[in-house]
């Protein structure tokens, strides 16, 4: 693992791999999300209870999954940055945070819109909703902390510690609906006894989720490249400042 990460950690290597992966990810993201949209909006039958509101699920659930997935990725990257000091892990974690924050925002807003007609309220302070809100704040804290230092590396390491500490929130989000008697329904897809969604509704959901994942990869590659440039810019600016002195 460390050696693989090390070999990936060189910027030149990353650029090469990213150049190969990027077009595929972009095609996959467009294709899957396109298919998923048509499927979810046109072909999926209305739910026996919720009718057409169930279509919100096709953006809400993948976004909610991605919000947690993105944080898990950040936590793993942060651990590897703290232990093995891969510079690229820092850049990737930094690049992930705004994406995760965006997915969390989507999950919160669409969930709220969905909650009004079904539950009868936009917001309820139950364990699931509250823990996802905490996740959103953690993303904001991570972004603020990683940019709060004059030295980028310092900020990256402080933010990495925060990301690892905040990872304790992930199991709380996942199991909040099982442990507490919440308004939010229990898990439908990722559960021990198999999904409780009918296959005609499950497949488009999985297609959408795959599309969101590909979209995440696209965004991540763009943002890592951007972070690499920002770092290089800082190095060159320091050189110039040193020469000017």
């Amino acid at each position, binding site marked *: 693992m460390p050696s693989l990460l090390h070999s990936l950690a060189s910027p030149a290597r990353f650029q090469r791999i990213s150049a190969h992966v990027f077009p595929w990810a972009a095609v996959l993201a467009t294709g899957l999300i396109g298919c998923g949209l048509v499927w979810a*909006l046109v072909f999926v039958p209305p739910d026996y209870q919720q009718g057409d*509101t169930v279509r*919100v699920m096709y953006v*809400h659930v993948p976004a909610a999954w991605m919000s947690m997935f993105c944080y898990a990725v950040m936590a793993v990257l942060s651990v590897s940055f703290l232990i093995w000091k891969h510079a690229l892990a820092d850049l990737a974690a930094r690049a992930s945070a705004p994406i995760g924050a965006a997915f969390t*925002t989507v999950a919160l*807003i669409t969930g709220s*819109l969905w909650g009004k007609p079904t539950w009868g309220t936009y917001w309820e302070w139950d364990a699931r909703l509250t823990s996802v809100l905490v996740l959103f704040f953690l993303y904001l804290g991570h972004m603020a902390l990683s940019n709060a230092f004059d030295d980028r590396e310092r900020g990256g390491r402080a933010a990495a510690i925060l990301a690892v500490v905040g990872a304790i929130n992930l199991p709380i989000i996942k199991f909040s609906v099982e442990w507490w008697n919440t308004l939010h329904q229990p898990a439908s897809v990722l559960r021990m006894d198999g999904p409780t969604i009918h296959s005609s509704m499950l497949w488009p959901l999985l297609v959408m989720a795959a599309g969101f994942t590909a979209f995440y990869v696209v*965004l991540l590659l763009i943002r890592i490249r951007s972070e690499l440039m920002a770092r290089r*810019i800082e190095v060159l600016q320091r050189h110039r400042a040193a020469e000017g002195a």
Partner: protein
Amino acid sequence: MAAFLDMGGYAATVWPSYGVTAVILIGLLVFSLRQLAKRREQLDALEAERERSRNP
């Protein structure tokens, strides 16, 4: 078509959800691309400057 847009009476729930998702995700994509372009420009300028100062 009208029935499709009506979403079984839930147009006010379904369409804003998809709209918000699109705005946020595409917004982040556009923002990231523009940031990348801006940084590339800045970096090119700095690299060019460095070249010039190396071989005057």
